[in-house]
């Protein structure tokens, strides 16, 4: 029971500070779950994000469900997800009841302009940390550059490929590429024997 409460409380806190979309929560998850509590690893987190991207639902919720499940099974998954939802629900209930023009308040806009700067630094640092283990050879570098370009330029390009499609393609290409690499490895090993 204590473990479940701990999960709920941890994700409640994380849910209250996840400004700027699912990926912005990665640095906070890293700090709270990898460094402080050792509930998961940075590699697992990254994998949860790539799965969360191509399954239904909101990425940050999907990641919460994954971590909760890993820690305490189905109950843990529910505790983490509901915990993550609690903050946003309360905030919107308050805004809907009292603060009709919340987003247009000058003080809110200034605060958020500051927060956005912080969020892009946090994301940059997460990318720098994950880079070494994710982009390991020319193939993954090429894949990174293509998907990055398609995503970053999505406003300029005349067509838009949904992120889920990109992720699924990347998975399939990964299977094919690692298969080719294995075959090459095997045939060169055989060549060495002969």
């Amino acid at each position, binding site marked *: 029971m204590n473990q479940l409460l701990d999960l709920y409380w941890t994700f409640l806190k994380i*849910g209250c*500070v996840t*400004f700027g*979309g699912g*990926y*912005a929560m*990665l*640095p*906070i998850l890293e700090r709270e779950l990898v460094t402080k509590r050792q509930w998961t690893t940075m590699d697992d987190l*990254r*994998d949860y994000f*790539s799965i969360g991207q*191509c399954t*239904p*639902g*909101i*990425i940050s919720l*999907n990641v919460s*469900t*994954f971590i909760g499940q*890993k820690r305490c099974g189905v109950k843990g*998954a529910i505790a983490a997800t*509901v915990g993550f939802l609690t903050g*946003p*629900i309360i*905030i*919107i*209930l308050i805004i*809907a009841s009292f603060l009709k023009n919340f*987003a247009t308040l000058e003080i809110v806009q*200034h605060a*958020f*302009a*500051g*927060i*956005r700067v*912080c*969020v*892009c*630094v*946090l*994301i*940059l*640092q997460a*990318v720098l940390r*994950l880079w070494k283990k*994710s982009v390991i050879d020319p193939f993954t570098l090429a*894949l*990174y550059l293509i*998907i*990055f370009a398609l*995503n*970053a330029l999505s406003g300029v390009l005349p067509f838009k490929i949904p*992120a889920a499609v*990109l*992720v699924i393609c*990347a998975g399939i290409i990964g*299977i094919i*590429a690692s*298969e080719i690499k294995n075959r090459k490895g095997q045939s060169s090993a055989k060549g060495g024997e002969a």
Partner: protein
Amino acid sequence: MVLLRLMFEFAKTGLFSVGGGLATLPFLYEISDKTGWFSHADIADMIAVSESTPGAIGINMSTYAGFTTSGILGGVLASLALAFPSVVIILIIAKFLEKYRQNKLVDGAFYGLRAASIAMISAAGINVAKVALINLSAYQLTGNLMDLFNIKAIILGILIFIGQKKLKWSPVIFIALSAVVGILLKF
């Protein structure tokens, strides 16, 4: 009855929207047209609210619609309904993942997925940076290259970057500090 309908509509949104929070938008417009629980203008407002609060747009809109139609209980139930389908799907995938982690195909898929994942994280960072650090409208107005970059923001960004490296504080503290700096210096 309204409660059931609320839960059904938002569960559907949760089931079919794949990707980031904004992927829920087309479904929210559809709900708006069909039910009149909220208007298109409400959705636009909620995008702004979602950008200035922690929640994702889908969660926020479900809470808002539930609250306006059926009070606090409606707000809570609609949000839980939105989350329900993805929780079930992730639970199934998590089981599968535990079992097949060592499988060659799964391993190969992750070989590609990892590069894709970090590419998407980078792109998300660039998209935030475009708004946070660059001031395109001021540049278009004056044509002065100095106006293109939001100098105050870039200095704050560099300070946060160094601060994070040296101080090892929680990111939450840096988020709170940047909000205060944003208010004080009128970002």
